């Protein structure tokens, strides 16, 4: 599964990071960085949680 961030929507709330710190982080400027686009099956639950909490629906999984 692939996790993607829609840059034009992401405003940097970082709520996704609280859910999935192994998959993404905010850099020093508060920009979201995806550490791995390809999500291992055992992390898919964590990735779904990140998608779920983003307040502006900027993360998607497919």
């Amino acid at each position, binding site marked *: 599964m692939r996790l993607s961030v829609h840059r*034009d929507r992401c*405003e*940097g*709330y*970082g*709520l996704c990071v*609280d859910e999935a710190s192994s998959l993404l982080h905010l850099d020093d*400027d*508060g*920009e979201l960085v995806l550490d791995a686009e390809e999500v291992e099956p055992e992390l898919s639950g964590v990735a779904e949680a990140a998608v*779920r*909490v983003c*307040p*502006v*629906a900027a993360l998607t999984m497919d």
Partner: protein
Amino acid sequence: MTLTRTSHSEVDLFSDEVLVDPYPVYRDLRDRGGAVRLSALDVWAIPRYADVRRALADWAGFSSRGIALNEPVNRMLVGSVLASDPPFHDTLRAVLSARLGPRAVRPLQAEIAGRAERLVDELVERGSFDAVTDLAVAFPFSVVFDLIGIPDDARPKMLGWADATFTVFGPLNERTLGGLDAIGEMFGWLGTLQATDLKEGSMGRDIFRAADEGRIGRESCIPLLAAYTSAGLDTTINAIANAVHLLGTHPDQWDLVTADPGLVPSALNEVLRYDAPVQGFGRTVTGDIEIDGAPVRSGSQVLLLYGSGNRDERRYPEPDRFDVTRNPVDHLAFGYGTHACAGQALARLEAHAVLTALATRVRRFRVGEPVRHLNNVVRGLERLPVDGLELR
């Protein structure tokens, strides 16, 4: 052929009795179905969490041009960020989020925390105070006015204006009609403002700069300014008032917060879930659809009930229990998706600052009988006496 069924309710969601305590009515609506026809209003209520979220995620299917439950106000809001759909919406929103997004407000944190500490120290010194006027109103006023940079002479009027801007989203009842006069007055005043009336470097001044630079049209300046002044006040005020009320009436929960002020963000999420300051907003359905088996025709008006979705037993176990450790990060109090609150980073910063200042100073406090403030959209308080402070 699919089997369709239509649930109805005769309830007037905007009557005084329901506004005082809407939650039993919401539960009844949720039990009736995912979309319930409100016969009195010609509107579909959407009371369950999952359906509200789905609608908020689908701006094309649920247009914000029907944000209010009455046509005069929807017409008035044409061109505002709240009532516009993408792509125009996104142009306006970009101007706001450049100043309101988490990256932009993080540097304000120390200053806002300091202000909260000074205010709370002063109130603690007094020994008793009104948590609405002296804290919940006083604090966002002092923060937001300076940030927006609008002239001081508008302050006395602004509270009434901000309250009116929300109440008029309801159906054309007495409250809405009363609010319309106040709104007219507010837009009249805003319309007189020039860039130079707004403090240099302020968020308000930035709007005019965006127009100078051609990022937005001139005609968008006043609607954007209104988005700051109205959306940023009544909501935060009542979030803080509701927080003091809920934490004061649940001393065991307050004990948890004072023992570990790291719980403040979770406690705020629970306050926002439990008593959403914005109880609901409308949308216009743009195609024939079915919601939970109910046929909803193109052009229908729906009312997304954030306050009910937040108490949906299908989403939150024991939804009527106030639990500061629950941390319901996906609550609907800030909406979701395209129109998700653009000011939520600032709102959180303000509310965290106030609650942290209280939690690190006050071990126990007593709240007296609250007086509810009735507004078609906003759930909050008019007065909340606090005394019996025991300090840490």
